[in-house]
Structures are given as C-alpha cells and as structure tokens.
C-alpha cells in the first residue's frame, strides 16, 4: 500500500494593509463633507392671505423700511428702539390675530436690514405680515 504523504499546509495571507489606505481615504472624504457648524436663524410664519382686511389697521403695528431707515408707526427709530417698542407690545401674551406686525419695505432694502427687523418681530413674539405696495 502506498503511503500517503501528509499535505503541506499552505499559509493563506490576506493582504490587509490596503484596507487602511482605503479607510483613511474615506475618512478624508467625510471630514471634508461634514459641516460641524450649528446653523442658526429665525423661524417665522408669514400669513399667506392674498389681501388682508384693513378695518383693524389702526390697531396693528407697522414697520416700514425705507433704504437704511426704519419707521415704526410712521416714526423713525433705530433697530434698538424698535426692539424696545415691540417688546412693550407684549405680543407673547396676545391672541394669534393680535400678534400680527405689518412689514413694508421699499425696493432698495437689502436683506440684511429686512432680516434684522424680521428677527426683532419674531423675538418679540409677533407674526410678520408682508405689506405689498399697490401697483
């Protein structure tokens, strides 16, 4: 009878050093694609009505933006004064319908000023309603 030779065991080496390269490439991709900055801003609900009723207009606070100027109920104010005046209205405690603050702006108003006023209204508990110029 023929004697069987025990099979020589082959060493199977899986090349793993390339895994690290692939993994580090993926890490670099995720580091570049990740934004760790917390986004901040102002959340506001703008009434979507086409045309608002105007019979209560004398009661509603109105903010007008004319270029760099801010007018609160036809009185020129600074952004700080506007914040104080809006805070004095106690809009947080009022009913939803009474929270409306009308905002009107001339075409030359930059978003920076508009955003600043909108943030002030929102912070005071108000709801911004955009007033459009009659054509």
């Amino acid at each position, binding site marked *: 009878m023929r004697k069987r030779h025990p099979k020589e065991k082959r060493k199977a080496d899986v090349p793993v050093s390339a895994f690290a390269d692939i993994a580090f490439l993926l890490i670099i991709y995720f580091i570049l694609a990740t934004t760790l900055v917390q*986004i901040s801003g102002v959340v506001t609900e703008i009434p979507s009505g086409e045309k608002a009723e105007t019979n209560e207009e004398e009661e509603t606070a109105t903010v007008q933006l004319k270029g760099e100027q801010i007018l609160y109920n036809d009185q020129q104010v600074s952004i700080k004064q506007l914040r104080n005046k809006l805070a004095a209205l106690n809009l947080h405690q009022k009913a939803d319908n009474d929270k409306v603050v009308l905002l009107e702006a001339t075409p030359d108003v*930059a978003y920076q000023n508009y955003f600043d006023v909108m943030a002030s209204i929102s912070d005071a508990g108000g709801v911004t309603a955009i007033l459009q110029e009659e054509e």
Partner: protein
Amino acid sequence: MKKKRRRRRAAILVPVASIADIAFLLIIFFMLCSRFAKDPGEKVDPPTTLQVNPLDDFPMVVLIDKSGRIYFQGKQVSGPEQIEEEVRQYVEGKTDDKFRTVMVRCDRTVLKHKFEPVYEAIAKGGGRIAAVGEKSKD
C-alpha cells in the same frame, strides 16, 4: 586589533491590521455625524442680528445667491412661482411643522424685489420660513 562584531538587525514588524479597524470606526463616526448640504455650494454671506436660535435640519432648502439666482434643493429654479409649486407639493398632507419649514439662505446684499417674492411664494405654498442668519458680535 579587535574585530568589531556586527549586530544582527532585528526585523521590525508593524501591526497594520488594527489600523484599518480604527479607521473604519472613524468612518462610522463621521457617517453618523455628517449632514450633507442641500445647496449648490454657492457662497452666501448670511445676514446678522442679535437674536438667533439654533435651527433644526429642515428638509427643504431655498438659496438666493448674491446675483439673485434662486435654488430649491440645490437646483436652480425659474422663479418664485416654481418655488410655490415645489413647496405646495412637498407640504401636501403634512401637518408636522418640521416638514412644512423651508430653510431660506439668502445673501445679505440681495434686494427686496428678489427675496420678498420668494418669501411670499413659500407662504402661499403652505410653508413656514426658517431664515438662516448669524449672531452679530455687537
């Protein structure tokens, strides 16, 4: 003369197999932490104000760049009418405020005739606005 004995150099084996494990753990961490931007990569200089709050990751993003181009979910749109339509379609049947909120990123230098129609379009489409801005230093 004394002959110098040569030292036999020992083979140094660096175990690299565990590096991959560490790297993959880091990948998992970054994958879970990542929030992919839904804007077209346009540089926008955000407005600043004293009162800003941290915003959640809202599903709809509108971007208005310096030159007044409007983007919805990273794609340029023809105008506010398209924004209204897109928002209306997205909001349909959703009552949760989170799904109704549109994140608006607008450059601070954009003038009213460009951004206000977008605001109105979002409102008409049934959306809520989350205007992105930064806290001013003074």
